[in-house]
């Protein structure tokens, strides 16, 4: 039986926060390494702020498109131009751990979108590509609309993630 109660909920939110951090840096890395993500992000208007969050109190992760470069804003409080909000942490978790696709979550009304729906579609296409890097084929076969195609190797992508993470942590300490 699934655990209930505030303690279990807090655990699920902690998992979500970790995945948001990985996804957050993963999207930035993919925007540099993968020309498909780069092309999608290049179509986003300057100063677009995209937030992915869990209602009602978070966690959340945001990105900003500034001077043609996608920037990771972490869990900072921002005013998003596009907000994708999961109605509950329980609805978000299957997606965040690679058990369900982003589109599957939308299909099940697990998330709301505030902002331009065309931009939201572009953002979802990017998330699919990032999931292709983060999750093994065994999982992506089930959750992605078509087989994951990796333009940069897993290792390079992870390397970039680790590098950026180290640099960010170095900068903040």
């Amino acid at each position, binding site marked *: 039986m699934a655990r209930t109660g505030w303690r279990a909920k807090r655990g699920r939110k902690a998992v979500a926060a970790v995945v948001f951090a990985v996804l957050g840096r993963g999207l930035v890395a993919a925007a540099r390494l993968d020309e498909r993500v780069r092309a999608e992000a290049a179509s986003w208007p300057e100063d677009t702020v995209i937030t992915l969050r869990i209602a009602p109190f978070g966690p959340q992760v945001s990105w900003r498109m500034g001077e043609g470069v996608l920037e990771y804003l972490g869990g900072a409080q921002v005013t998003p131009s596009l907000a994708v909000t999961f109605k509950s942490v329980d609805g978000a978790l299957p997606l965040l751990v690679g058990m369900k696709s982003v589109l599957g979550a*939308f299909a099940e009304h697990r998330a709301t*979108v*505030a902002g331009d729906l065309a931009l939201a579609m572009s953002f979802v296409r990017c998330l699919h590509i990032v999931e292709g890097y983060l999750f093994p084929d065994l999982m992506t076969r089930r959750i992605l609309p078509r087989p994951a195609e990796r333009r940069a190797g897993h290792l390079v992508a992870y390397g970039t993630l680790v590098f950026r993470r180290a640099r960010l942590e170095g900068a903040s300490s």
Partner: protein
Amino acid sequence: MIPDYYEFCNSTKIVSGARAIEHIGYELAALGASRPLVLTNAQLLELKVATIVIDALADTDAEVAGVYDAVPVDSSAAVVDDVARAYREAGADAIVAVGGGSVLDTAKGAMIVLTHGGSLMEHRGAESLLGRRAVTFIAIPTTAGTGSEVTSAAVIKDTDRHVKMGFTSLSLLPDVAILDPRLTVGLPPRLTASTAMDALTHAVESVSCVQANPLSDCYAKAAIGLIRDYLPVALDDPRSSKARLALANAALMAGAAFSNAMVGIVHAMGHAAGGVAGIPHGEAMSVLLPHGMAYNLDVACDRYGELLIDLAGVETHAATPAADRGAAAIGAVRSITALLHERTGLPVTLGEMGVQPEQIPDIARAALDDGAMSMNPKQPSYEELIDILKGAL
């Protein structure tokens, strides 16, 4: 068929039948409204279609706050703002929208602005509008196709920024939808056929899309049965109230089905073909439906097979082995489009509508980016789409 999780909502009260519009006074009073703004277009007033509603309102406790008849075929954010202004100036407390998809979507846009303030642009999104709506809304469709009278979506153009704004929210569902055959008996045969094919496509796509659920299936299957039984009757006898009412109900039910279960590849290609080549929506649906079904067949065979009984009747269903019913359902759709081609001149190829081979790549690219594509049970590549569209040319 039971999905792991689904949501379904159709909160709109349906008032359907001969002279149903005459109950509009009661419906407004029941909702606590007494000063409706009638929203329509000049053509519907000229054809004396909107007049039926205005005359019915004259004989009620309600006082018509105004008649806004300047909704264009392609509505826009500017029109929505103007309607909201007219509503406020007239001191109205309800919108009675009489028209096709454009009039109904304009009403939905105006309700967003009137309820949430600011500009329409700020409220774009899916399921993001919260709280109760400030406007009573009665929808009276004058075509039997789009199903907008029971859908929670609206698409409105921002002509300044050249973008289409999409909205989905349960707060866009009308309080009441009135179906009265007097509003559709005058529709010409070809328009009757193409709007019915739009409704048929909503029903068929809702069944194969990823959000299909037991409730949306009920609506979709009932809609298909009504179209099969009554579209030929409406073509034989355009003034048949019974056939018109049946088709209006079919469009409404198909609307409720796809509002909850969504549409897929056929609409994605149709929206794209409309944008690139300007072909009318219903006619695009009629041409593309069998092609989209054929593409989905390997993943949706059982689902389409279930529709054979509604598309072709119980005898055909019983005489077809279970494994062949999906393909037979596509055959049944093809015989309907062939019949409509013969009876009304409805096209069966994109070429007949003037689509040029060199436009196919643009249509394919736009279809891939269309929101409807993401709800299809199977995601095509660009090359696959080119093949499907060439097949329909």
